[in-house]
């Protein structure tokens, strides 16, 4: 009797297991014309996206988009990859450019190349490259971009009698001047927790962390440009004239707010951060192009920026693409994106939707968007690889360790390169010698 029960139990378990694996295989990810009304889920962390979806839903009764608000950043990417693996990914997902290759490599997002020829013209070539990864495929529709610029306290720059630095050498000089005048005050901070920030500065310097040649990947994270950027900041930190606390911590917020940090090399989405983290600075901050490596040059990089991808498991791929296209290229939608979600749209015509400066800058930098647009055209990016998660994690651990041990920053860059290459080799990617 007892054994029968056991056998039954075992059978039940097998059945349960069988059912769940059967469920995984069920969704046929082939694009089919939607029949009848469909419902799409959309994972995003942009503010007020639910309001924008409501506008779409009102106009398109056949395709209802439900927004599921996510936490942003690397966690969101990990969550999406896990969901995709488990077979319950959302139809649409906000994908940061640096994570898109991991999504593609995990086969979690659909190739939209067949239906996006018309959209391509809306975007600058460099941006479009971020969603094609330099291949024939198109894996997402660009939504926003994050060209980098220098945010600085106009009033305090005057107080400490420093000019807006045009080159990184001038930046270093200014850092020394400020810190000498008041040891509690720093021109800025080096953040060992923000690999995206560092990647943007490396892009400005002309780095190419990943590249595809033929059928193989080339990893050049420890190239001359990146090493130069790392050593520059490492020198300033070692001198003690630049702070080394991570961005977005309460400590850093306080420093920005009370004027003990005077500048922040950041991206075009900076106003939102400043407004919430440094409310006392309203009307005191200005923007300028990033300092240059060589006087007279004019380059910037990208920090952040994201796209809208359609998951490969979506049963309503055509409908999802229709919404993604509307959201990121329709003038009315772009207007909403700017006003409600506070994004800097990637589509060329979206940038004309930018009128009034962010309230935070209304007094101190009324031409904020014009500045941003000018700087935006100078930004250059690079191809992101299929294991950015590994690289970014190695950044945090590597630079944390370098700061703790007071080691040269070039060692941290080397550790990023080694970790990235080792991971790709382990997975079996074809690597160029």
């Amino acid at each position, binding site marked *: *009797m*007892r054994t029968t*029960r*056991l056998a*039954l*139990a*075992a059978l*039940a*378990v097998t059945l*349960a*297991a069988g059912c769940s694996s059967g469920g995984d295989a069920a969704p046929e990810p082939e694009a089919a014309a939607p029949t009848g009304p469909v419902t799409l889920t959309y994972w995003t962390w942009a503010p007020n996206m639910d309001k924008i979806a409501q506008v779409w839903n009102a106009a398109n009764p056949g395709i209802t988009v439900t927004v599921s608000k996510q936490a942003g950043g*690397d*966690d969101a990417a*990990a*969550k999406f*990859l*896990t969901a995709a*693996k488990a077979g319950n990914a959302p139809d649409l997902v906000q994908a940061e450019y640096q994570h898109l*290759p*991991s999504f*593609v*490599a*995990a*086969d979690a997002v659909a*190739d939209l190349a067949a239906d996006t020829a018309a959209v391509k013209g809306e975007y600058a070539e460099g941006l479009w490259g971020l969603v094609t*990864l330099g*291949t024939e*495929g198109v894996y997402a529709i660009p939504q926003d971009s994050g060209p980098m610029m220098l945010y600085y306290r106009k009033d305090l720059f005057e107080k400490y009698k420093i000019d807006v630095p045009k080159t990184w050498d001038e930046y270093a000089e200014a850092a020394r001047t400020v810190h000498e005048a008041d040891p509690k005050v720093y021109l800025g901070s080096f953040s*060992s*927790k923000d690999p995206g920030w560092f990647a943007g500065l490396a892009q400005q310097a002309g780095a190419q962390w990943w590249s*595809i040649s033929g*059928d*193989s*990947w080339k990893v050049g994270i420890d190239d001359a440009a990146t090493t130069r950027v790392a050593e520059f900041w490492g020198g300033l930190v070692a001198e003690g004239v630049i702070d*080394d606390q*991570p961005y*977005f*911590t*309460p*400590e850093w917020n*306080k*420093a920005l707010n009370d004027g003990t940090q005077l500048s922040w090399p950041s991206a075009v989405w900076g106003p939102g951060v400043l407004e919430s983290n440094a409310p006392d600075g309203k009307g005191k901050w200005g923007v300028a192009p990033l300092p240059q490596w060589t006087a007279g040059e004019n380059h910037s990089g990208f920090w952040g920026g994201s796209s809208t991808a359609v998951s490969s498991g979506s049963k309503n791929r055509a409908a999802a693409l229709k919404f993604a296209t509307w959201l990121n290229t329709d003038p009315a939608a772009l207007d909403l994106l700017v006003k409600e979600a506070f994004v800097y749209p990637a589509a060329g015509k979206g940038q004309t939707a930018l009128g009034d400066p962010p309230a935070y800058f209304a007094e101190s930098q009324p031409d904020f968007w014009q500045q941003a647009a000018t700087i935006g055209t100078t930004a250059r990016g690079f191809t992101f690889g*299929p*294991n950015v*998660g*590994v690289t970014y*994690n190695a950044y*945090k*651990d590597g*630079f*944390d*360790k370098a*700061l*703790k041990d007071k080691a040269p920053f070039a060692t941290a860059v080397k550790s990023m390169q080694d970790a990235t290459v080792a*991971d790709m080799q382990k*997975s*079996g*990617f*074809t690597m160029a010698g």
Partner: protein
Amino acid sequence: MFLAPAIVLFLLFFALPIGYTGYLSLRRTKVSGLGLGKGSRQEVWAGADNLTAAVADGELWAGWSRVVGYGALVLVVMLGLALLFALLLDSAHVRLARFARIAIFLPYAVPGVVASLLWGFLYLPSLTPIGGIDFLGATAVTFSMANVAVWGGTGFNMLVLYTNLRAIPRSYYEAARIDGASELAIALRVKIPLLVPAIVLTTVFSLIATVQVFTEPTTLRPFSNTISSTWSPLMKVYRDAFVTGDLYSAAATSLVIAAVSLVVSFGFLRVVRGRAFGEVR
């Protein structure tokens, strides 16, 4: 046959996940070419590769050594305080016993993440009311984290010990008093020996919690340069699974952690068994 529901539950929620973890630990992804495009990524057998790599990983063992230091601090201080408070509350002369009991227990009701954040804010140099110490510096950070765990865990352990104390017949104490024992002597000679099983129990719980330390370092990590993504073994599992996307290595490392915590807790029980439960081997 009355065991059937239990067996089903055991298989479904215990054996199956562990079996699946074991299965995953034997797999890995194999990428061909650029790894983009369809079908370029496959799951293949890895044999024991993941397990040997997990065992051979220096970072994992460095993590263990950090956790041993942290755990020794937490165990000694937390259980020491818990025992002290329990004995004080149980002694005849204490005032405000109810209030003190609740006050000491209350931090246990605060979720670990919240506790770590609360303390994290107190540790940050520009926000802390206590100046002069870099709480998140390389040397102090272990103490700072242990402090959070002690703050949160003492109350619970105290309560376990205290309830056990209350269960001891009062007549023992009277007997001791008639023999001329002081309160201190009663505590040391009567109460503590009778408490040993409860102390063993709280130690095992705390040991397992220590092996699994994750919340405090993970929550404090964004505030500090001194906590790496693999500070504790469990953090390494999290990193492998969700940051670098290697579920298979994570599964292998989980198995290693499970083995270690099994060895540690059973090893401890074995060592103290004779004394704690009066069993004769």
